[in-house]
């Protein structure tokens, strides 16, 4: 397994390089313009100057190689400097955002906490409610519980978050005034009060996202459980006199987890990617909002770096999923 992991990681390097090139070319080719935000009052010559100041004067291979160097060499050096107070990266240009003219990684670091708390929490909550619902729905297939579960999750999945989010805001922020409609990213949790405040502002976005995630995961959980409930080993487990709970939760569940692990692992990079619409509705300003505003502003360094980080996460999480397959099902071996 260790070998498998190392081999896959080694293989990941060319894969990722290729992915980064494709992303770069895609961004190059796509018709957006970093200066679209600049008002029409700014004359073309000035725009041209601004474009050159962004480094857009160079041909793309040079910019791509420069970015590679910055990503893989300058940034790590910079972090080393930060950590140990050395000065390797002195005078080296870090990756700079077109929009804010600040280092891309600093902005990402700023955004990471809220994305992780809100989106991450919603993912955890989503999984925590999806798995029991999926299990119970399958075990009691076509019972009223299953029917309601199906109903709610399909509604939850088919209603876009731009709609459910606003409904929640209107009910709970405008009418009932229970929760704030605007997420305060500057809030620091230092004591019980601020913790409560943080909890309050997380309730709505987390609910919206969790519902959406839960709907999807629970459907896969249910179908996978249904496939396994009829297997012979379940009969053996029952013959041992185990309670239904153990039979289902231990024996069937573990065998049913592979497609669910796939779904969850595929969804995890999205946690870091943020939930674009939900973040916008609740003004969470996490990585999703960062990405979308960068894309709209055609902020190539920002989009490229963010997307590339997601690519790394995707590669890592598919690897983790593959490893988990092996852990869940010992018959699947990698060696």
């Amino acid at each position, binding site marked *: 397994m260790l070998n498998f992991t190392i081999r896959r990681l080694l293989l990941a390097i060319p894969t990722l390089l290729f992915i980064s090139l494709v992303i770069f070319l895609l961004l190059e080719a796509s018709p957006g313009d970093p*200066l679209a935000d600049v008002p*029409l009052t700014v004359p073309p010559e000035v725009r*041209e100057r601004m474009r050159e100041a962004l480094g857009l004067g160079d041909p793309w291979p040079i910019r791509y190689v420069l970015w590679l160097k910055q990503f893989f060499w300058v940034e790590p050096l910079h972090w080393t400097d930060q950590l140990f107070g050395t000065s390797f990266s002195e005078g080296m240009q870090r990756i700079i955002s077109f*929009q804010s003219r600040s280092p891309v990684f600093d902005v990402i670091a700023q955004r990471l906490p809220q994305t992780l708390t809100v989106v991450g929490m919603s993912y955890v909550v989503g999984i925590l409610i999806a798995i029991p619902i999926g299990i119970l729905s399958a075990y009691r297939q076509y019972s009223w519980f299953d029917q309601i579960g199906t109903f709610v999750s399909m509604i939850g999945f088919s209603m876009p978050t731009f709609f459910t989010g606003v409904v929640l805001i209107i009910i709970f922020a405008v009418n009932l005034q229970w929760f704030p*409609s605007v997420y305060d990213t500057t809030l620091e949790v230092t004591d019980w009060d601020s913790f409560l405040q943080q909890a309050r502002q997380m309730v709505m976005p987390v609910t919206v996202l969790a519902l959406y995630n839960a709907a999807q995961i629970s459907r896969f959980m249910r179908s996978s459980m249904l496939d396994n409930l009829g297997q012979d080993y379940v009969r053996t487990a029952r013959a041992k006199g185990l309670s239904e709970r153990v039979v289902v939760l231990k024996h069937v569940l573990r065998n049913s987890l592979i497609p669910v692990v796939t779904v969850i692992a595929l969804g995890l990079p999205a946690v870091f990617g943020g939930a674009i619409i939900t973040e916008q*509705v609740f003004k969470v300003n996490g990585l999703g909002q960062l990405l979308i505003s960068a894309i709209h502003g055609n902020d190539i360094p920002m989009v490229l770096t963010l997307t590339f980080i997601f690519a790394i996460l995707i590669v890592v999480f598919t690897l983790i999923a593959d490893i988990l397959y092996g852990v869940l099902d010992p018959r699947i071996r990698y060696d």
Partner: protein
Amino acid sequence: ERGSDGQVNIIMWQAPSTMNPYLSGGTKEIIAGSLVLEPLAGYDTEGNIFPRLVTEIPSLENGGISEDLTSVTWKLRDDIKWSDGTPFTAEDVVFTGEYCMHPEGGCSQLAKFEGVTSIEAVDPHTVRVNFDSPRPDPFSAFVGGQSPILQKAQFEQCIGANAPTCTEQNFNPVGTGAFRVTEFLTNDTITLEANPEYRDPAKPAFATMLVKGGGDAAGAARSVMETGEFDYAWNTQLAPDVIAGMEAAGRGKVSAAFGSLVERIHVNLTDPSSSLPEGERSTRAHPHPFLTDPAVRKALSMAIDRALLVEIGYGPAGQPTCNYVPAPEAWASDNTECLTQDIEGANALLDEAGWVRGPDGIREKDGVRLSMLFQTSVNAVRQDFQALIKQWWSEIGVETELKTVDASVFFGSDAGSPDTLQKFYADVQMYADNFDGTNPAPYLAKHTCDKAPSPANQWQGEGISRFCDEEYDRMVDEIEGIVDADERAAMGRKMNDMLTKDSNAIIPIVYRGTASAHSNTLGGVALNAWDSETWNVADWYRIQE
């Protein structure tokens, strides 16, 4: 008393990405920047210039403007201190000029310094700006929120190619304004506190300020007018009934200020047909098959009910207009003919011009059908307008196909994209534009023959309609030389009419204001369309119930 009113919260759903307006040029950055940075002089709500960091506005009378109109001299106030406590001097002004005019800096406000040959510090409190030619209106550099003064001490290292590396400076500039930054999170949140060195010891009334970014216009308006979490929301352009619904909550209201922004339809006078080879589409080499007919253009304009469009799309934040230049007052032509919709008249006009209705109700002449592609950027109000206008045009026998383009593509000037405003691969397109400051002359100058976008200028020209009239070109040359303000305005009005009612190359629709919502407890707000919206943030205060 300074700081007595606690905290004020502003929501800007398009979040500022930097505090330095020289590096962005976007309105949101200018608004954010003007919380901290100040120009020498600003505009008030009427568009009148007034002194901020200077003792008086230079003029011919007080000698501030030289006789030959080639230089302007600013007398700085001597009681101004930067927020770090150091004094504000002429050196800072000179530096700011150098900063923006540096050839490698990519300064987005470079146009403000057009024609400036040098800026010199005559003495610590006097600055002279020299121009290459006579300037009847020299108030461009250092006037208005777009070109505030940066502190030399802070930005000295950030000049030219170094400009983008100065993140700390760009995010936390030292200013002379009412507030200073305590924390800047790009595209997210700015926290500010009252500037202890601000020249008026009683101001600002608020001790701290939070500027929150993100979300959408409706959410921002809601947080001011319905939940009361915020005091001020910038750019809450929403459907009038939605706003009315929110105002009913009684917590706040939306107000509008009118500058020079006009939503209009540009008519393509050249042929955008995709059957033409690339490089010749929408160029003057091929005149448009039917939009070159003045009657058609006029009919298109007559068919539109501008008042209704305003009612549906903008409410109080818009006025129907027939002008390309709607302000300042002296420049606004009394062109009101188009304000009443006249479908019948338009039909008659087309009949007369020989455009006869075919079996499907679409007019045609010599095998040319009046069938058009109408494009605009993605925006709910514009899409409503498109639908309505399409309907009206169908009533005069013109068929319209609608198309929308993502704003970042439409307004981007990527020469490779077929969907940009400048390429204009459509028959008509709608968008809004305005001019800077109070001088419309350069704005009018965009429509000379040589400024039509074409492959020759990498599609960067500004004469979107491909309007070309020698008479007009001549007037553009002339107007810069006219010193007398009234005469200039008169010529401006004439040019405006040539573009609009005479030729209908541009069909103005709505004179748009900028709408912003503010809480009923926030006092001192005076919306200003000529300058940054937060121009008088120092005067804001909390209304005590």
